[in-house]
């Protein structure tokens, strides 16, 4: 039974890393949003499983918050933003899919090495959770770095935050207040970014952030 408990936690957290890779692989905005919603569903499953293992009912609340906000509200509103901006074309990636994947692999390997060294005495369950959470976080950062389109950068930011929630759920004794405030601050960040997107578009007629560099007089 102990083995199965660990295996399911490993399965869910590992799937979260896999879905992060699937997000890096997408080159269309709508499919990117679908994968992002799936990412949030896997996250909430993983958090719910942690709640079951740790016997911590407040983690169920976290799972439900993740499910409602990240799997439904944010993808739907990003969908509407994309439709209103009229940018459902292909994403321009700065580097190709292959090098991005390799860089992602390197980041996962790095986070595993770092976490396994740093948490040598910890409980194996918390250990694997933290290692995967760091991978998801770094992959979200990689997503923000490799994409030019502001909307996909927002998605990268949100997936990074999913990694934070996974880490918080793995560490025992996280109070609910902190989680709720994190969830709301992400929502507010999302609103601010949404307004920014329209401002950027009004100013530059595009949401390609390369134009910002050109506007500042930087050379590429």
């Amino acid at each position, binding site marked *: 039974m102990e083995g199965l408990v*660990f*295996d399911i936690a490993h399965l869910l957290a*590992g*799937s979260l890393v896999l879905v992060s890779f699937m997000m890096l*692989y997408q080159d269309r905005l709508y499919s990117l949003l679908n994968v992002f919603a799936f990412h949030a569903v896997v996250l909430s499953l993983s958090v719910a499983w942690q709640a079951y293992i740790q016997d911590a009912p407040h983690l169920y609340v976290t799972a439900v918050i993740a499910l409602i906000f990240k799997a439904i509200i944010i993808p739907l509103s990003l969908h509407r933003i994309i439709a209103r901006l009229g940018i459902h074309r292909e994403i321009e990636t700065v580097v190709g*899919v*292959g090098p991005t*994947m390799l860089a992602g692999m390197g980041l996962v390997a790095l986070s595993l090495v770092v976490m*396994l060294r740093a948490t040598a005495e910890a409980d194996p369950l918390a*250990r694997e959770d933290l290692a995967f959470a760091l991978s998801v976080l770094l992959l979200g950062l990689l997503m923000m770095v490799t994409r030019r389109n502001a909307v996909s950068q927002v998605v990268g930011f949100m997936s990074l935050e999913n990694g934070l929630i996974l880490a918080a759920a793995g560490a025992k004794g996280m109070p609910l207040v902190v989680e709720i405030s994190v969830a709301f601050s992400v929502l507010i960040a999302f609103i601010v970014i949404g307004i920014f997107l329209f401002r950027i578009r009004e100013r530059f007629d595009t949401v390609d952030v390369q134009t910002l560099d050109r506007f500042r007089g930087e050379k590429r």
Partner: protein
Amino acid sequence: MISALLPGLLIQGAQMLVVLLLSPLLTGFVRKVKARLLRRQGPPLLQHYRDLLRLLRKEAVVAENASWLFRATPYMIFAATWVAAALVPTFATGLLFSWSADLIAIIALLGSARFFLALAGMDVGTSFGGIGSSREVMIASLAEPAMIMIVFILALIAGSTQLSTVAAFMQTPAVGLRVSLGMALFALLMVAIAENARIPVDNPATHLELTMVHEAMVLEYSGRHLAVLELAASLKLLLYLSLIACVFVPWGLAPAGAGWATHILGGAAYVGKLFFGGFMLAVFETSIAKMRVFRVPDFLGAGLMLGLLGTLLLFVSRSL
């Protein structure tokens, strides 16, 4: 000494015959199901045997400037593929050769077969053969690392690259629920599709120069050479299906030293698995469009990525 080896030798001999005799039937079955799914009548199930026999009787036409390599290659490819197919446990795990060669040896055998096929494609000097060889090598350069990664996953989980040991381990509850194994399965399916020149990567039924990969390399062959090559291609398809069945659905495999009844049961289970696999392949092939050649690296890159990620994730699981 001899009497101890005899059952293993008998099973090994039976296995070699079974794979050789079943492989054209499997190819015929996949063709039939594909035709039925397209609402065509399709060729009879035994048609592939008849094709092979007729090709064997026909005269082999060899190009004027072909070297000895061109004539020797079909037999080399056939021998390597047959040996590799004989090493995968199909209905019983107590194979005699299985202890002398593991999964890595199987990959090496298939790799050398591909090497000779690519050489033969370029031997005559036609442009089609060259383009086929270059594409085949491009596909192989991604499929082989992905395959090696899958072997790493299996070896890390089961503690052996020996297929009999892996199959026996997969039947025990010690396997548990592992995300890495799921990734290995998907990666193996992708590699199998690419290696057997099936639809999203290559179309085995076409002679259209823009799309063909495998067919372009064997374009210059005829007669018995072509028959042997076609049989080797069928064997390769059977090999990959048996490999997937042996590692991921090992139920029904007769363990070493089991009685005759268990072996017959294992044989029935094997045929069932094979036809289920062939049916799924046909359904998959009819429901998907062929991708452009330059999209193939993306497809196989995903397979390689799955294999690599599965290996990495194993390092934080409970066994290591």
